[in-house]
């Protein structure tokens, strides 16, 4: 087992374990902070998939932006949200969560069955890409290529997403305005 594989297993164990903790815990603040760990471990997995730029973006946007936003919203929504959580002293598997658990477990079985059947390493285009050396090498610097591609072949999605970001900004500012528009 090489070091890369070892790191992959460690990272995926951390990601899955902390995601399970996020799903299982009753304490909302603790679950938000454990979600930090999940996102960091996922960034590590992205690095192991040789996508370092995506990993840095994940850390900057998710950990720096989204989680701080979630914490803000949680703190602003006040004591009531906390009270709801204190009331529900249920075990992890109660009668109310059985359907959700069942659905998630069955869906996991279906997905894993499909993944095993597909056998992604022997897909046609992946074999072709390995044969034509179209595979990212561990020592390659991809950020420059990403920047060039972003401004040439992916310019249309880039512009579309910039318009969508502006719309979301205006919408969020309008929704959270004091007083309301009535």
């Amino acid at each position: 087992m090489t070091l890369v594989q070892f790191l992959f297993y460690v990272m995926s164990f951390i990601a899955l374990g902390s995601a399970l903790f996020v799903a299982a815990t009753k304490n909302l603040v603790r679950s938000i902070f454990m979600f930090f760990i999940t996102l960091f471990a996922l960034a590590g997995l992205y690095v192991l998939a040789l996508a370092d730029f995506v990993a840095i973006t994940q850390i900057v946007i998710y950990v720096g932006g989204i989680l701080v936003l979630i914490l803000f919203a949680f703190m602003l929504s006040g004591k009531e949200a906390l009270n709801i959580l204190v009331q529900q002293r249920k075990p992890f598997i109660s009668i109310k969560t059985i359907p959700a658990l069942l659905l998630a477990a069955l869906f996991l079985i279906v997905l894993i069955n499909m993944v095993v059947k597909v056998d992604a390493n022997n897909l046609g285009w992946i074999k072709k890409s390995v044969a034509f050396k179209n595979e990212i090498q561990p020592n390659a610097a991809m950020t420059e290529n990403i920047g060039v591609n972003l401004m040439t072949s992916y310019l249309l999605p880039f512009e579309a997403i910039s318009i969508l970001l502006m719309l979301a900004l205006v919408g969020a500012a309008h929704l959270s305005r004091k007083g309301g528009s009535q």
Partner: protein
Amino acid sequence: MISLTDFLIVSAALFCIGLYMILSKHNAIQILIGIELMLNAAILNLVAFGKYDRFNNGGQMFALFAIVLAAATTAVALAIILNVYKKYKTIDPGQVDKLKD
């Protein structure tokens, strides 16, 4: 090297944990976290397959777009949650059952 199947299995497990959170939680913020987990599972798949596309970078590029989309979604969703809390004094989606008038 790490095979693609490992990445796919990890992301399938993450997706199902997110699905479980969405179905079972009574708190809008935790449901939002479940949605983020599912989005992250999808991004992990994109990145894992993007390794085999050195010249066009399709996978990594759309992973970046998905991250930005998740940020926009979260901002709007949290604004909506704050408004719902102001009106109903709860953020349990099961109790938000009235229209405006």
